[in-house]
C-alpha cells in the first residue's frame, strides 16, 4: 500500500443538489490526495450532498466533477472504486456477516465480473485487520460489534479496497471519547501511507488535530479553503456556526503546540 499515485478531485463550477433544488451552487474546489482535508459546516449546509456528488451517487446539476482530470460520470463503479473508497458512518446491517467477510467486501473492485475473493484477497484483508489491530474481531459477527468497532471495521474495508483516496462521513460521530481519539489517530497515520483523505466533521478541533487543509461550507456557495491555522479563526467560526469560540495554543510536550477550540457558554 505504498507509492500510490496522487489523486486530485476537482469541482468545476459544480451545482449540486436534488432535482430542482440546488444545495451548493457554482462550487470550485480542488482536493488533492496528498492532504487530509476536513470539511466543516453547519447542519444542512450540504456536506453530505458534496460527498454524495463526489462519490458519484448524485450527478451534478451543472458543471462537472473531475477525478484526475476525467469526469466522474465516465468512470465505471469498479474503476472509480479502485481510486476512491468511502467510509460511511457505522451503521447496522440485519445480516450476521463475519468481520473478515465485511473487510473482504473491500476487495470487490479487484474481482472479475462473476469473481469471488481468492487467496490473495483474503491475505490483503487479513493484513489490513492486522494493521488496524482488529485481528481478534475477525470471526465475530459484524452486527454484534460496538459502534467504535464497527467504524474501525469499515475503515479496514476501505483500506482493503486499496484506493488512493478515502472519503469519511463523520467517522467519529456516535463514538465514545476514547474511540474518537483512536479513529482520528488511525486516520492521521494513513496520511503517512500517501492516502488522501476527505473527512466531514462537526468539530473544528479535528481539523487542528489531523487536517492539513480545511474546507468550510457556509451558504449555498460560500466556500473557504486553506490551512486550518489560517482560516479557522474566531470570526470564521462565529460566521459558520453562529456561536462565540475561543482559540488557544495548547502545549504538546516536545511537539509544537496545537491549537484547540472551546465554545464560550
Amino acid at each position, binding site marked *: 500500500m505504498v507509492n500510490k499515485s496522487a489523486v486530485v478531485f476537482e469541482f468545476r463550477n459544480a451545482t449540486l443538489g436534488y432535482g430542482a433544488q440546488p444545495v451548493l451552487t457554482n462550487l470550485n474546489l480542488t482536493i488533492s490526495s496528498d492532504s487530509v482535508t476536513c470539511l466543516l459546516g453547519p447542519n444542512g449546509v450540504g456536506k453530505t450532498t458534496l460527498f454524495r456528488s463526489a*462519490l458519484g451517487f448524485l450527478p451534478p446539476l451543472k458543471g462537472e466533477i473531475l477525478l484526475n482530470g476525467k469526469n466522474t460520470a465516465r468512470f465505471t*463503479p469498479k474503476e472509480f*472504486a479502485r481510486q476512491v473508497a468511502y467510509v460511511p458512518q457505522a451503521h447496522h446491517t440485519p445480516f*450476521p*456477516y463475519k468481520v473478515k*467477510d465485511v473487510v473482504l467486501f473491500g476487495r470487490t473492485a479487484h474481482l472479475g465480473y462473476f469473481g*469471488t475473493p481468492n487467496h490473495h484477497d483474503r491475505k490483503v484483508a487479513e493484513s489490513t485487520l492486522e494493521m488496524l489491530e482488529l485481528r481478534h474481531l475477525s470471526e465475530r459477527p459484524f452486527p*454484534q460489534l460496538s459502534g467504535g468497532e464497527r467504524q474501525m471495521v469499515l475503515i479496514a474495508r476501505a483500506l482493503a479496497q486499496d484506493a488512493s483516496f478515502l472519503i469519511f462521513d463523520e467517522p467519529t460521530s456516535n463514538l465514545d471519547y476514547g474511540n474518537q481519539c483512536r479513529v482520528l489517530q488511525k486516520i492521521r497515520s494513513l496520511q503517512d501511507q500517501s492516502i488522501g483523505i476527505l473527512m466531514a466533521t462537526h468539530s473544528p478541533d479535528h481539523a487542528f488535530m489531523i487536517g492539513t487543509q480545511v474546507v468550510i461550507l457556509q451558504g449555498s456557495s460560500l466556500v473557504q479553503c486553506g490551512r486550518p491555522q489560517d482560516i479557522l479563526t474566531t470570526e470564521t467560526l462565529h460566521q459558520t456556526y453562529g456561536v462565540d469560540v475561543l482559540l488557544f495554543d495548547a502545549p504538546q510536550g516536545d511537539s509544537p503546540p496545537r491549537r484547540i477550540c472551546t465554545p464560550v457558554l
Partner: protein
Amino acid sequence: MLEKYKHSLILVIGSILLLLLCLISLYIGRYPITPAELFRFIFHGECTDPNLPVVLLNIRAPRIIAAIAVGGALSIAGTAYQGLFRNPMVSPDILGVTSGAGLGAAIAILLSLSIVGIQLLSFAGGLAAVLLAVGIGKSVGKGHDVILVLVLSGMIISSLCGALLSLCKYMADPDDKLPAITYWLMGSLASIRMNDLYVVLPIITVGVVPLLLFRWQLNVLSFGEEEARSLGINTSVLRAVVILSTSLMTASVVSVCGIIGWVGLLVPHLTRMITGADHRILLPASFLFGAIFLLLVDNLARSISSVEIPIGILTAVIGAPFFLYFLRKSKRTW
C-alpha cells in the same frame, strides 16, 4: 480453508438427505409398493406389476421433481430478495409477482381458458405486476431511496391485484368457477405433469444461474445500495438481474402450482442459521433446503389424510410455528 470444507459438507449432506427423501417419496403413496419392488425397478428396470412404471414415472416422479424445483426456486428467490432489500422479512412476492399471477389465473379461469391458458395468463400476470411495480418505482423514485420506493410500489401493485382478484371471485359462478379459483389459489403440486416441467425447469434454470454467478456481489449489495456502489458494484445492473431472475422463477412456479406461501420466507431464514449470511453458500444451500422442505411437506400433503390437503395450507400451518420458534431462538442476529 476450514470454511470451504464446512460449506462443501453442508451441500453434500443436504444432497444426500434430498436423495434419500426422493426414494422415500417414491415409496409413499396410495398405490402400495413394496421396497423390494421399488429397488428392483430403480436399479434393474424390471417389475412384475404392469401398473408400477405408470405410478412411479408418470405420477410420483414428476411430482417429486416439481416439489424440488418449486421449493428450491421459491427459497433461492426469497434469499436473493432478502439480500437485495436488506431485510430478512422479505419474501419473493414483495414486488407483487404472486398476486399478479393469482389475478392472471383467476381471469383465465373466469374466461374458461384451458389449463395451458391459465398457466400462460398467470405467468404473464406475475411478470406484468413486477414490471408495473418497477416502472412506478422508476417514475416516482427520482432522488429517493430506490429500495424503499420499490417496496412501496410493490405494495401498491399487490393490493391492487388483490382487489381485482376479489372482483373476479365476486363475478365468478359460485358453482364451478369460484371453487376453481379458490382451489387454484391454495396451491397444489397434484396436477403437475411432465409436460409442465419441460417448460418450468428451463425457466427456473435461467433464473437460478445468474443468482449463483452474482453470489459475491449480492453479499456486498446486502450491505446497502450506496456502499455497494462505492465498493465497485454496478448496483442498477445487479438489481435488475436479481429482480428479473427471481420474478421469472416465481411467476413460472406460481403459474403451474398456484400460490405456495411461507417457503420463500422461512427457508432462507432456516438456511442462514445453518450456513451464516454469506451468499456464496447461502444461495445454493437455500435451494437445496427449500427442495427438501417442500418435498417433505408435499409428502405430508398427500399422505396424512385420505383427501389431499392443499400444500399452501400445510406450508403455512407448519411454517408459522417453525418461524416463531426460530425467531425466538435466534434472538439478535437473523
